[in-house]
């Protein structure tokens, strides 16, 4: 990760509306939950050889920053209007592969996605956790999963802490280790970032 005077930045071509520090793009924590996670100090580093599967790419803000760091980003997005914006972002970046499919049906896009080092999911849906579990097949063993849990989408009435602990236990049952929960309250209300690691089968 590139830090410039305490501000998270990335290299790469600027997109309209970006704030710049010299040649670097500023990755604002208010706009991107992943940046917020790095500001709060517990995100796994993205390195140049990483392949990333991004579920819920939306209009491609976070995707563009990730693509600056990583090797290849598979960006899955189903809604047409954000997809159009995502395609604009893709024009400048050769390493983003837009996949217009529903993240809940991984079989549809399975032929296109190879085993990835990092699985990132930011879908504000009630079945968020189930969707990410269905996509775990793409994650290599020992790879990281980042789940941005929007507790208000899971249930409006329940206590966010409870929803989060339920999600964590589901992830544990699915064979994920090293689960770390970070609340992003400073930047995004009622959002929890859950970072965990897929068990390395060779080690067992």
């Amino acid at each position, binding site marked *: 990760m590139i830090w410039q005077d305490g501000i998270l930045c990335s290299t790469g071509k600027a997109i309209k509306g970006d704030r710049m520090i010299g040649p670097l793009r500023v990755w604002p924590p208010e706009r991107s939950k992943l940046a917020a996670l790095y500001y709060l100090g517990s995100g796994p580093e993205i390195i140049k050889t990483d392949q990333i599967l991004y579920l819920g790419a939306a209009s491609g803000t976070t995707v563009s920053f990730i693509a600056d760091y990583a090797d290849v980003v598979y960006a899955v997005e189903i809604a047409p209007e954000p997809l159009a914006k995502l395609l604009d972002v893709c024009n400048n970046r050769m390493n983003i592969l837009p996949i217009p499919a529903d993240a809940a049906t991984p079989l549809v896009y399975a032929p*296109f996605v190879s085993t990835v080092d990092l699985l990132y999911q930011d879908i504000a849906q009630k079945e968020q956790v189930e969707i990410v579990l269905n996509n775990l*097949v793409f994650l290599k063993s020992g790879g990281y999963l980042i789940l941005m849990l929007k507790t208000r989408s899971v249930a409006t009435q329940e206590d966010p802490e409870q929803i989060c602990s339920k999600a964590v236990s589901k992830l544990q049952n699915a064979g994920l280790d090293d689960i770390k929960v970070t609340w992003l309250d400073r930047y995004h209300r009622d959002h929890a970032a859950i970072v965990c690691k897929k068990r390395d089968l060779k080690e067992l």
Partner: protein
Amino acid sequence: MDSKQSEKTDDLHVSSFYWYDELKIERDSTLPIPTVFYSRFIENGGKLSILPTWKEAVTKGICKDKDDYYFYLREICLMWSRNKLQKYNSSEEVRLVKLMLVLRETDLMMSRLSEQIINWDSMRESDSDSSVKQKKGLDPIREMASGTGNDGISLLCRDLVSMKGSRGKLVRDISMRCEKLLPNCSNIVGPLVAARLLLEAGSLKRLCRMPASKIQVLGARNALFSHLSSGSPPPKHGLIFEHKRIHAASRRIRGKISRTLASNLIIAFRIDYYRGTIDSAFLERAQLRIEKAGKKS
């Protein structure tokens, strides 16, 4: 979840078609790989498989190296996305919904603006004067627009009047589109109400899967939720109130009529979605039922 997960994994590993499979013969064809692949992909009904690696594609001789692999894959993904977007953008239903959004915004803007202008106008004149005007039913906006004033407010009034004309044209456009897309429904409640129902539901598919009782109160969100949470009387009708049989009826039988109307309307929506042609036999029966509703036989 765990057992389900492993089942799925096995399922995925059984099939072994990658996006670059079956392309061996076509490598030297004049068409670029993505086009060839894309047509194959469509032919197969979009069914392919999982977890390919670029190394396999290179050993099979499809691609020269890793960059080549990702270049082709990216082209395919872009093609897939553009195709999807094109389908979405050319859908009549989506266009109708977007037009309805424009209409809604226009109405909101016009009513807010005219309210403020009337507010300003009544401040300028004495109180008695403005109340006389309101009793006569004069439209202050129209009056100000027809005056010779050259100040900002008069100009705005003229804009508002011309905007009313544009709005009328927009409504006619919407009606025409809606009559084509929802012929049966437009026949029962009128094209504009049908379009409003479509906008409220989001899409025709979702609308068709609704129960009739939901159509009945569609557009009465606040009343419905205050009923559910605090037990106030339930809403009898939402957007379908615009139908003349309902708003002309006496209060006592409005609920009965809107129930009948909604149940016929949902059938009409389903005919429109799944068949798409006008069904005059059904319409006759539906009209009869709606006419009869609330009357003692």
